[in-house]
């Protein structure tokens, strides 16, 4: 009955004798901790220095090179910047730079599930066969010329396609944009119409009131 015998020693809240834990009779118990241990506890032993040498240096260089290279590979996917609060004039020039649906590399789709295939590329593929056709028939200077012509055509095609596709949308948008721009201009004009020299910040009148104030406080 050592557990109960403990009562005699005045430590009745323990169900075991403290001697088993290595705390002798009469020794104070360690203070109980009421807070979590520190996030960065002091280190009693300093860490060993890192290895050095040619191998280590080379691996370090390789690691840093790899890391820098990944940012330029097509596999590094950036989310296109979220729409900012204000519609800017420059937005329509930036729009094509980062579109979510464009792949910068061409994976072998036969190794991927069908559902992952992103559709947008198809519109480009439509144009590509024509490119090949013109390329094979011509050579040298003619090639350059035809290429230029083709590019011209392509632009037209793209334009017309766009128009066909989103005719209504575009026109609506454009109208809206124009309206907005007009509005903006008007607003600006209105703002600038305000004769700045006429602006009265109340300083001229302040002298009197200041004096009055002073008087009031005194």
């Amino acid at each position, binding site marked *: 009955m*050592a557990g109960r015998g403990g009562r005699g020693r005045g430590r009745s809240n323990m169900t075991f004798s403290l001697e088993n834990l290595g705390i002798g009779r009469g020794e104070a118990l360690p203070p109980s901790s009421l807070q979590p241990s520190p996030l960065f506890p002091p280190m009693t032993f300093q860490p060993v220095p890192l290895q050095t040498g040619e191998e280590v240096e080379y691996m370090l260089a390789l690691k840093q090179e790899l890391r820098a*290279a990944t940012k330029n590979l097509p596999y590094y996917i950036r989310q296109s910047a979220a729409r900012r609060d204000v519609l800017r004039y420059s937005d329509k020039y930036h729009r094509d730079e980062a579109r*979510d649906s464009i792949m910068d*590399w061409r994976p072998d789709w036969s190794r991927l599930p069908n559902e992952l295939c992103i559709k947008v590329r198809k519109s480009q593929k439509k144009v590509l066969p024509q490119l090949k056709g013109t390329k094979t028939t011509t050579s040298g200077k003619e090639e350059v010329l035809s290429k230029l012509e083709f590019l011209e055509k392509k632009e037209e095609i793209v334009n017309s396609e766009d128009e066909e596709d989103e005719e209504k949308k575009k026109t609506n948008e454009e109208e809206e944009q124009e309206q907005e721009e007009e509005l903006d201009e008007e607003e600006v004009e209105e703002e600038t119409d305000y004769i700045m020299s006429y602006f009265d910040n109340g300083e001229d009148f302040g002298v009197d009131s200041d004096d009055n104030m002073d008087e009031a406080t005194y």
Partner: protein
Amino acid sequence: MTAQEVRLCGLLLQEHFGDVVEKVGTHLLRNGAQHLRAIVQETGTPMDLVKKSLCVLIQHGACAFSSGRKGPGSPVEYQASFERILRILRYPRYIYTAKTLYGDTGELIIEELLQRGHMTMSSTVKTVADRLTLNMEEGHSMEYSEVSNTFSKLVETHFLQRCPPVEVAGKAVSATPDPATTPGAPANNTTPSTPESFADCYKVPHVTLIGRGKRRNSSEDGEDQRNAKRAKEDPETHGDEGIYWQVNFERFHLHFRDQAIISAVANKLDQTSSEIVRTMLRMSEVTTPPIATCTQALSANEIFRSLPPNYNISRPILDQYLTLLVDDPMEFVGKSGDSGGGMYVVNLHRALANLARATLESVVQERFGSRSARIFRLLLRKRHLEQKQVEDFAMIPAKEAKDMLYTLLSENLVQLQEIPKTPDHAPSRTFYLYTVNQLPTARMLLQNCFKTVANLIERRLFETKESKRLLEKSQRIEAILASLQASGAEPEQLTEVEEMITPPEKQQLESLRHHINKLDSAENQVDETIFLLESYIKSTATNKVIG
């Protein structure tokens, strides 16, 4: 799959493939196999971005997909593999190993393949040849055939392997209820097929590639972009379309394991004995299966014949060395028979276990001091000890020994085993035995290592973020300098531009570079410990299954 592993994987994905892939990847890691719609919904990412991310993950082998798990016609499910993602940490080591074994060409081949996940042989050879040509002197260039040779050698030694052919049930339109039940293809959907299970895994296709690396004007846009462009516009065919190659990580790991054993022998005994072990490992490289506990038995005669002649080890000396190796407490080499002048094996599993044990011991020593390490070693050797016995055997004053023992216990490095004499578990009638369980301790240490690496990466990101402005400035100035130099500017102009970075800024940049180098180097070196512990845990697991 632990929280630490997910965190580290997330950081690695973010660093290599950007935030979007990180989001999709960690979601997959946390939630297991999922289909596309669920991923889109639960991550709140646009569909196109999710698709792109999945393509990237699959391209790099970090994600597998399968369909029909819930019956035929069910949507394709994606599953990320954290093991593959953690391999990113070891990329520098793979590349370095390829360099030591196969020179610059091997280095670049492995680097390209690691960066791009998988590639065809022809495109790899071309890219590598172009890159090598770029670094050569004017007028020289690299032959495609030379690069092809190195590539074939890497395949022959199994460092590269073919990507296994994909079986997409979503693509096979066949309406048969379950193609997996046909004889010859048992349980195709349940067991993930390993690349090695295909017959052509290490077969190099016939590739028609004639020519040499081309040099492009370096004033054009970035190298990588050009490579990508070239790859796109390449209309030629080389007869290996659709055959993709990937890096065989397992083979590299076997090489790392052998190197670890050899260098351990060299440190423990001497250079000559390490050469003997190296010879033994090389001889059995082909004949020993990867998961074997020990190599094929080799007779002393065979070993003697295969020793490189320039070591000048005579037969009696070899015998002496072999007996010395067998008697060594690290048990790297064992004797399995007496025929043929003695049959010897390399105890692969025991060697890994001993190396892992040494790692644990040194961790305790460096964190808690050599006297705590003494207690730890004592417990490892004697298995179970009572507190009183620990104090006596370790020859450390009782009070201090208790303190150390409890510290180790609270850090989970030492376990406590209760053995009650009576069924009521009364403390006074119970034995309290302290013990060290090597395997769980190694697992815990491995998790600590993952945490360490994740912390290192986060610290590095923090450091770079703190001095982002400074870094951008120095980059801009470097760009200006380069363009000025190219246009042949006066030296005064150059110095003027150089002075745009003030001395205190220069100092700051220098210290930042120093810190980042340290952090990166530490990542590499922690990974070596990770490798050792992982191999030990894996080898123990496979050997238990076998019996």
